[in-house]
């Protein structure tokens, strides 16, 4: 379901020279963002709403959400916020990020989150901004995609060089504290990853 809908939309967008499908999506996004009215939303619209590549992502996202949550209609940011528990701007970032990752790797989910490469850089950028985020995955034909993804993310945490690059933003330490109620240093965190003791934290970052 998930991959099928993605492929359908990706093909539509790819073949749409004048952006016919896009205009509907853009219109909805614009209306919704304008409704929000606050400064971040306006800026976001200005910076991202009119960019074709990112709007492509939005089309996919609305479809994805509509499939995933029965009570989310296209353009329903309020419910969207409630679901992912964060402000709109973050959600769009999550979405764009997730799309990029999924779109690039949809044929081979195992290549998600390599220690090097663009998806790792994206992960680092999120950590580097210290904002709440999570990657969202659907079941693929009843098979959990999120579970192996969590395992790969745990491998990132086990890697000393990768963890060093992620650690200084304080995001992981905060997230760990929020979930387990204890402070932790980088070395101890890496040992937790090695011993498979970061399950709840991984679930908070990769959801389905």
């Amino acid at each position, binding site marked *: 379901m998930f991959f099928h809908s993605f492929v359908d939309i990706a093909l539509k967008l790819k073949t749409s020279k004048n952006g016919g499908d896009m205009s509907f999506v853009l219109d909805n996004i614009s209306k919704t963002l304008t409704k929000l009215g606050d400064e971040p939303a306006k800026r976001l619209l200005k910076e991202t709403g009119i960019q074709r590549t990112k709007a492509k992502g939005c089309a996919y996202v609305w479809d994805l959400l509509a499939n995933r949550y029965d009570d989310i209609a296209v353009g329903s940011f309020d419910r969207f916020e409630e679901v992912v528990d964060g402000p709109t701007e973050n959600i769009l*970032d999550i979405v764009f990020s997730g799309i990029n990752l999924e779109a690039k790797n949809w044929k081979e989910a195992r290549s998600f989150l390599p220690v090097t490469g663009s998806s790792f850089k994206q992960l680092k950028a999120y950590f*580097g*901004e210290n904002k709440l985020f999570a990657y969202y995955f659907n079941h693929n034909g009843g098979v959990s995609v999120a579970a192996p993804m969590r395992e790969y993310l745990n491998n990132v945490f086990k890697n000393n060089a990768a963890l060093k690059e992620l650690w200084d933003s304080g995001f992981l330490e905060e997230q760990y504290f929020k979930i387990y109620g204890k402070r932790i*240093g980088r070395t*101890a965190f890496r040992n937790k990853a090695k011993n498979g003791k970061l399950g709840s934290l991984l679930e908070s970052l990769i959801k389905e």
Partner: protein
Amino acid sequence: MFTKKHRLDKVGSIIPLKDGRVFIFGEDSYNPWHYIFSNGSLNKFEKNIEWEEALLLDNDEILFCDDDSNIYIGSGDFVSSKFLFNNFYLINNNDNRAQKYFMLQCKENDSKSSIFSFKDLKQLWDSYKYTSIIDEFVYTSEEYKRGENPKNIFNRVDPIDGSLILKMELDESIDFKTIRFFDLRNDVLFIKPSTSESTLAFGVSNSTGKVLWKVDDRNMRHFQIHHSEDKLIALHYNYEERDLHTGEVIFQHKDENLFEDFYPRQGNLKFCQVGKYIITVVPRKNKIYAYNMDTNEFDWIYTDPNVKSFLPAVRIEFCSNHLFLRDDDGHVNIYKLDEEWNL
């Protein structure tokens, strides 16, 4: 305002010492090394142990932790660094302030932390609560568990034995997991939320435990205490000052045109105060901004062509007239303050 001098790869910790030197630790193709940055020059040293984390003590000595949970102490001459303890992890503080007391986490039981004094490096007491150290003060708090303990237990305790000195009188039902960042100036403990999930911030008297003020505003997480004045400052979608003793807004500068290019998004933006300037970076950009708090202008905006984007949530260091900024390629960029610049 600043001129770029160095760009270092694979850096782990950056620790500015009180004497003006800066220790920079890293790893290059599995060969651990460190730099000592002094008077504008970098000297590189190879090491035989890879230090994982480091913590500055009040006497300018540094504690190190290696991958096997061994703790060492050194003063820059790493050949003579001493082994101190094993089976402990280091928990370093967030702002690189020199520690009069420090805390190590027990490897075998991560609920247990041990408090030490920097003077004799002796273990003073063990804590099973969430413990924070700011300067010479130690605080403990407990997670609320229904039926097990009352809400919001937040205490200042004796650093020598952990005994209660005073109870902080927070009567709000708040989650300490979201407000653990605090700082202290002139007897006011500023407690702020760490994430956008929480919005409450408090000013609490450090000597009496009385709540002086409370503000419910999601932007409170962006504030820091001014270095030399009793106020809180924040640079986000605008510039804002609040009175440290009352929490009230005392100044706001909103200017859409001025902040057009300065787009902090929703993340936690770290900034560094350099005299009358706030130095900061924003997500996904390779620009450094210097905001003049006197004139409310960005006096200096610099685009570094060798950087793709800086990491805004990572601590920005300014020491010995040099600025240390991390970028998303894992480099640390070092910029020298130009001499003619009036701070």
